[in-house]
């Protein structure tokens, strides 16, 4: 049980759960990008996903567990860190620390809030029931019309903005988190560090662009019903 008590052990847990969540975010993104293939893309994807049955719930439970571990230890470590630093310098000056590394707790909490909203919006479908897949008519192939739900949702500026803010938080979180994982897993030697840091940032930018492309392109009417 050293793992969940030790300062290094918990850091490793953060890194492992973080990386698995990045894996989830990647799969999720690939699924979402099928929106650009029109109703036959994303609606088919949704049907396929739901056909997995119990496996979906296993998957969801696993993701929930990852979130619980990642958030619990994240908050715990952050609280310990602020206790360890009781007072601030009159002048705050950082040489290497980045905004993203220092705001991990906050971007993490924003992501949590976003996640809850996202689930209420698309999964439970109670924030905008009038344009939810549960309310909208089935598509031509008699599938729940996820495509229309997405397009109608992101045509609302407010909803798009919420998603964009959420994705910016994800970008900040990952631009530290990805390279941090490499360091925590002890995969750095001296010269690799700079490349890994840059690589992590680039991947984070990739996620940002890909995710944000969905609301932006819908808002800009590149994707229409």
């Amino acid at each position, binding site marked *: 049980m050293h793992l969940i008590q030790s*300062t290094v052990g918990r850091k490793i847990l953060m890194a492992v759960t973080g990386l698995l969540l990045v894996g989830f975010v990647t799969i999720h993104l690939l699924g979402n990008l099928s929106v650009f293939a029109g109703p036959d893309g994303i609606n088919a994807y949704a049907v396929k996903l739901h056909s997995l049955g119990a496996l979906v719930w296993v998957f969801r439970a696993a993701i929930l567990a990852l979130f619980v571990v990642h958030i619990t230890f994240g908050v715990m470590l952050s609280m310990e860190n602020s206790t360890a630093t009781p007072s601030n*310098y*009159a002048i705050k000056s950082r040489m*290497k620390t980045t905004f993203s590394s220092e705001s991990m707790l906050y971007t993490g909490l924003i992501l949590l809030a976003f996640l809850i909203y996202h689930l209420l919006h698309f999964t439970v479908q109670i924030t905008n029931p009038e344009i939810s897949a549960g309310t909208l008519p089935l598509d031509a192939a008699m599938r729940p019309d996820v495509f229309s739900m997405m397009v109608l949702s992101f045509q609302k500026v407010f909803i798009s903005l919420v998603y964009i803010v959420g994705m910016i938080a994800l970008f900040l979180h990952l631009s530290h988190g990805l390279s941090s994982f490499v360091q925590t*897993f002890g995969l750095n030697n001296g010269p690799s*560090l700079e490349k890994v840091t840059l690589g992590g940032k680039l991947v984070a930018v990739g996620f940002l662009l890909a995710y944000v492309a969905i609301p932006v392109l819908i808002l800009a009417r590149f994707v229409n019903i």
Partner: protein
Amino acid sequence: MDLTLHVWRQSGPKDKGKLETYPAKGISPDMSFLEMLDEVNEELIKTGKSPIVFDHDCREGICGMCSQTINGKAHGGQDRTTVCQLHMRSFKDGDEIFIEPWRARAFPVIKDLIVDRTALDTIMQAGGYTSCHTGGVPDGNAHPIGKPVADYAMDAAECIGCGACVAGCPNSSAMLFTSAKVAQLAVLPQGKHEAMARVMNMTDTMQAAGFGNCTNHLECEASCPKGVSVKFIAKLNREYMKALVS
């Protein structure tokens, strides 16, 4: 040149402490930062005020005693420079300089700019050694150590134990300090046998001493006056995982 100093004054561990402003007049650019403070202190003594108390000893950047955060940066933030080797030519006439002690819960302030760093010694006592006896050891050449390994160990061993890594770290973590010793001894044949217990004990002791957790800000590396690399923290993490699975 003339400067305005804002110096942390705190009469004892229980005092709240605050920044006081002092003029530093006629400072020569050839002075070291500590000599500038000496000058200010002479002036304070002559005007019946109590001089600023600060830790210092060798004044050549190796003993690790000096410890001041200058304008928010440990040791003033110049590359590979301790406060005692920081020279006034890196400031300019009219500058305002904020001078504060290391700030971390594990480093309580004793007085003014002096903090208590015995927590670092406690970490070392938890395993920062090889358990060899005095006498009865093999010949120095009995275990050849390849040059790259010896150089790696030496890079880690450059640490002067000043605590700048803690002072600079947004989490007040002593991970760079701890990792430097863990890494040095882990790669040497003499230190390998105790490597697993060492990494566990030293990191646990660090945690118990009230230091924060490492979250890879890398500020420690930038703050370190000896350029100790965060690659040693990566090495510590590897050593920890090895210890965990065995």
